[in-house]
């Protein structure tokens, strides 16, 4: 039976098969899965946004820690009981704090976090424009208009060597 395996597949499987996991594999167990697929997909989506608080930087969807399991089950119970996504999340935040949210909430203390990147871009953009404004005023003569493609071609052939990139 083993001999029938394609050799390269064997090698591939053998070489790729390693993987030693401290917190063993993806965590949702078959008995946790809700019967209602809509609720289940909501639960999965939410779990991916919730942090496993006893792990190193994993969501409860990914982690195999016992507490993660408990939280997944609890989350599904809340959803089955009719909680909205926000209510179910708030339930966990009430107990574990904002730490449990992988997407940081927008509070007064996270405003710099959320607007920071775009603010930096804005400042950089302004700097960019000012640089060009300044260089325009610099006393340099107006540069000649660029060569057309044909003119460039002719120039290259005249020069006879590869132009720099």
């Amino acid at each position, binding site marked *: 039976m083993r001999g029938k395996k394609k050799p390269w597949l064997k090698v*591939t499987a053998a070489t790729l098969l*390693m*993987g030693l996991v401290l917190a063993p594999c993806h965590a949702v167990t078959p008995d946790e899965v809700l019967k209602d697929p809509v609720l289940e997909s909501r639960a999965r989506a939410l779990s991916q946004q919730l942090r496993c608080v006893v792990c190193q930087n994993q969501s409860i969807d990914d982690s195999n820690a016992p507490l993660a399991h408990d939280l997944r089950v609890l989350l599904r119970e809340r959803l089955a009981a009719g909680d909205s996504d926000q209510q179910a999340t708030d339930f966990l935040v009430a107990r574990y704090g*904002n730490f449990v949210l992988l997407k940081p909430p927008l509070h007064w203390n996270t405003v710099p976090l959320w607007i920071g990147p775009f603010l930096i871009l804005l400042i950089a953009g302004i700097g960019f424009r000012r640089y060009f404004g300044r260089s325009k005023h610099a006393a*340099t003569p107006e540069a000649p208009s660029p060569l057309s493609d044909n003119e460039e071609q002719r120039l290259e052939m005249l020069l006879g060597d*590869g132009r720099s990139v």
Partner: protein
Amino acid sequence: MAAEAGLFAIIIALFISLVQSIVPLALMRRGGPAAAAFVRQAAIGQFVFIAVAFGCLTYAFVTSDFSVQVVAANSHTLKPLLYKVSGVWGNHEGSMLLWVLILSLFGAAVALFGDNLPDRLQANVLGVHGLIGLGFLTFIVITSNPFTRLINPPADGNGLNPILQDPGLAIHPPFLYLGYVGFSMAFSFSVAALIEGKVDASWARWVRPWVLAAWCFLTVGITLGSAWAYYTLGWGGWWFWDPVENASFMPWLAGTALLHSALVVERRHALISWTILLGILTFSLSLIGTFLVRSGVLTSVHSFAQDPSRGAFILALILLSTGGALTLFAIRAPRLRNGAPFAIISREGGLTVNNILLTTATATVFLGTFYPIFVDMMGNDKISVGPPYYNMTFVPIMVPLLLAMPIGPILKWKRDDIRSAMGRLKPAAYACLVAAIITLVVTLGHNVLATFFMAIAAWLVFGSFAILVHRTRIGSVPLSKSFWLARTTPLAFYGLIIAHAGMGVTIAGITGMTNWATEKIEMLRPGQSLQLSGYDVRLRSVGDIAGPNYEAERGYFDIARRGKPFAQLYSERRFYPVRQQQTTAAGIRTNLISNLYVTLGDPDGKGSWAVRFYYHPFMPLVWLGALTMSLGGFISLFDRRLRVGAPQRSATGLFAVPAE
């Protein structure tokens, strides 16, 4: 004996680094060939002695000398040889030794291959480099000595964490260190330039090979880390925005900006301050990354033991090096005159935009990584910053960059016309449209984002083709002329288009994985199967096997597609008695375009096991694309122009701009 020799070698290396730093900086004015020669010898010597020390530590690991503390803490006689060797750097002390080994390797390389560098510059560069070595060798000797002995050596060691007993450990850290420690050379060059008070076009030409080399290695290192996580962690995750992953990604982003910025310095003598700043910044980010992993400031899967005292030492080193460099920058930068102005629509303009976007992206990742510390400091609130944040900030910033990537190289220097530039890219635009239509059709119009990013992927890949076509004038000149143009094109050009195309492949991979990955879990008895995405996965049998230092339960799977046998895989649940740890090994089948991924989970005690099956379309493309980028970089390294001697200085002086 070996351990004592190793420690002795480190101390010698430390003294060498001391003189290596003092000589050029003390002889600043009177320098000259003698100082340069001395410093070259010192750099080579430093490398030799650190290599000896590293050899001694490796010897201790390989011979399982448990009287050496790190060996006892991290190794075991039953461990396979490969992991005994790679275990040398699987712990804090050993990895720091690897760190300084690579630092000194770059120093020695500049000493040996930097013949075309002017003496004063070489002396200053190696002097600054020596200072960095001095700092870290001191750190090692004082806080992280790998050669401490145990008074009562145990009969056997603690073994290595099972996760690290993997070929990934053998290659991922060395490449990573070659990358981000390699950026130390750019730092040294930048500071040397500030010390000399001048930067000319040739400086950029000398810096670029070193930055390029480090960048290539870092790209490979990060890719390896991602692939390793994928098959090791058991659920097919390949990037988590974990603080330590970010710690290697930030230098990569900054390093990419540096690479492109140096080009503008070289060709147009512009963006000088920016380039120097990036040179300093990139390595500083590497240092901050080193700090992150070893100080316990943030939780991460990667952390070595949390040790705030070591963290404090590294922080002090960072303060001295980066603080010193930036102070020098503040004082000297205004003196660096910028050269020829350029229009916004020009290659320099494009590269400036590239610079801005990459720097903003770096700042974004930095913000996300370190913000939790800030919040904790402000009040008693702890927050997490996870993938959702980066998806909403990093990705939108990268999009304009991706769009600009084919446009930049096709623009002319100094000034160009946007319409004619876009005209040259028409083939790419058509390909883009085709990709978008295909994706729309395949996804039945449901997934706008996927369509958008697949179009971008096509834009990048076919943009590279378009650039090649434009360069070789295919279609508008005789074929022989095109061939001639292709032959005489510098290698750096090919590096460019290959690297940019590689990025497109990676984007395709990410899009596929994010949008179309599927998974299923079921309890199966031997003989039962589950179906997903057109595959039938049958658990054939489960048996016990023994490995070199573990016992395992192995499940054999038969995978069929459309009724025909397709693959056979196995997955193991392993138990390591020495460390009392349980791990899982996944079975993966790849055809380099997509992956099938299966794992054996917990048994229910009644004859069934939890089986998880994942279908991962385009996953390998993520890494193949990244490796392609790195290949492009390596090809560029062989460009003749990066290795010939310094260009002739024009007679009119240092700041003369080549007439063009």
